[in-house]
């Protein structure tokens, strides 16, 4: 059974921070097409605040996720603050105090995170939001482990589904958030939140997969 260790969180978190900071402009550009062009700025503000004031390389994955979530939730405001904030905090709670994180645990983390966003944001699949990346990714991961796929395989499935999910938002009409103002005119461009969510999931999976090798007995 593969797993990675809670105490290996540093590298996952570092990569995640780098990903957001690196894509700040790109995400804002996407948001600019049908939103107000600040999605990258908003996320960058939160992740940078976390990096500079709260991030401790000694912290395990759970504690870092909790701190990250708390900074986003408390200090970013808007909708993204509480949505991503809750997402990370709820994922953290699932692994609090655990030594090892296996595919079943990771699946639960995902479930908790997705549920938090759904409860808080009240959006549905197809509304052109982060959920259009998140729900297919979560589903793909779940199916993979139901089909007894290895952790790393399941993560690859998640990656593919997230990418597909993100791309699917291009043809959607926005139903919630700022872009819903545009109705039909919101069609034809990617959703900014779905794009950032895909980046987050890709980065996490890419960080975790190499960690799994070390313990892979399957």
């Amino acid at each position, binding site marked *: 059974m593969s797993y990675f260790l809670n105490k290996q969180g540093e590298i996952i978190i570092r990569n995640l921070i780098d990903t957001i900071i690196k894509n700040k402009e790109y995400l804002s550009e996407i948001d*600019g097409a049908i939103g*107000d*062009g*600040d999605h990258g700025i908003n996320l960058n503000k939160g992740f940078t605040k976390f990096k500079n004031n709260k991030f401790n390389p000694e912290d395990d994955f759970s504690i870092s996720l909790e701190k990250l979530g708390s900074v986003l*939730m*408390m*200090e*970013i*405001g*808007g*909708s993204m*603050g*509480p*949505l991503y*904030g*809750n997402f990370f905090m709820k994922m953290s709670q699932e692994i609090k105090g655990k030594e090892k994180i296996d595919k079943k645990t990771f699946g639960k983390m995902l479930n908790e995170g997705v549920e938090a966003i759904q409860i*808080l*944001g*009240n959006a549905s699949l197809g509304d052109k939001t982060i959920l259009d990346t998140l729900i297919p990714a979560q589903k793909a991961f779940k199916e993979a482990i139901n089909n007894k796929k290895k952790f790393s395989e399941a993560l690859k499935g998640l990656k593919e589904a997230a990418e597909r999910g993100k791309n699917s938002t291009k043809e959607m009409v926005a139903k*919630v*958030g*700022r872009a*819903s*103002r*545009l*109705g039909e005119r919101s069609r034809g461009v990617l959703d900014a939140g779905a794009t950032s969510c895909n980046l987050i999931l890709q980065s996490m999976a890419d960080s975790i997969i190499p960690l799994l090798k070390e313990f892979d007995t399957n």
Partner: protein
Amino acid sequence: MQRIINDPDNVVEDMLKGYVKNHSDLVSSTDNPRVLKYKSAPIDGKVGIVTGGGSGHKPAFIGYIGKNMVDAVAVGEVFSSPTAKAFLDAFKAADAGKGVACLYGNYAGDNMNVKMAIQMAKSEGIEVKTVVANDDVASAPKTEREKRRGVAGEVLMWKIGGAKAVQGGSLDEVINAAQKAINNTRSIGIGLTSCTIPAVGKPNFEIPEGKMEVGIGHHGEPGIEVTDLKSADEMAKLMVNKIIADLPFIENDEIAVLLSGLGATPAMELYILYKEIPDLLKDKGISIYKSYIGDYFTSLDMMGATLTFMKLDEELKDLLDMRANSMGFKEFGE
């Protein structure tokens, strides 16, 4: 973009600095730069009144901090909800041990951040109850009132809630009064132009020349329909009819009227829009107890107006009569 600003990313900070400097007789800053409070808050023995929301709606929200109205406000970026921490700190600034009534609008971000803040306040022993304004009849059908946005009716909700708190009402009594106020309140907006978030630098959306958008929201949320630009009298009729049909307001009702510009509307035009309203109401047997005209709840530099009616009973009249002193709501005493 012809605007009076410095760094477009700092408009909220800059505005708050200017605001505190000018209104030091009314407000003070707090440890949280995104929270302002009434200089006398928390007031012993009084339920705290808190609100908050994105910036760009001046006088809302900080303009209603003051005597007999709001005790503390959480301030967000332009058109973006304040943080949960700002709401939490506003609760703390307003709480005198009798609990806090958080009276705010029904926007996704605000709902989420208030929810988080309340959870945290609870763990710190502060009791917070909420009323969520949903006076905008254009934002959802009547059968889904819980989905409707709060617009300028919030101002009357704060005035009523604030007065009830000053009268010594318990948290539940304050919440009930504010809830009654908003239950009795309906609004509708008409937008004639878009507005520009300074940090974005281009109009948020578009209304073609010669058209108007009926039912537009305070951030440019889509309305019910885009029609040809009508005369002021026709606009008045359209707005009055949409509002009174919804509650409905009926014969012998006594109401408060609030007609607010959206930011770039010359005051002259608000009076032109108002001209027919008393007669339209009279025709339906509805009488005006009080009317307020001015910029009460705006959307940056949007051109247009919102019309709000609140149906009054003896309690609401009594509460409405309590004079408030804030930047946005100033009432002369003898």
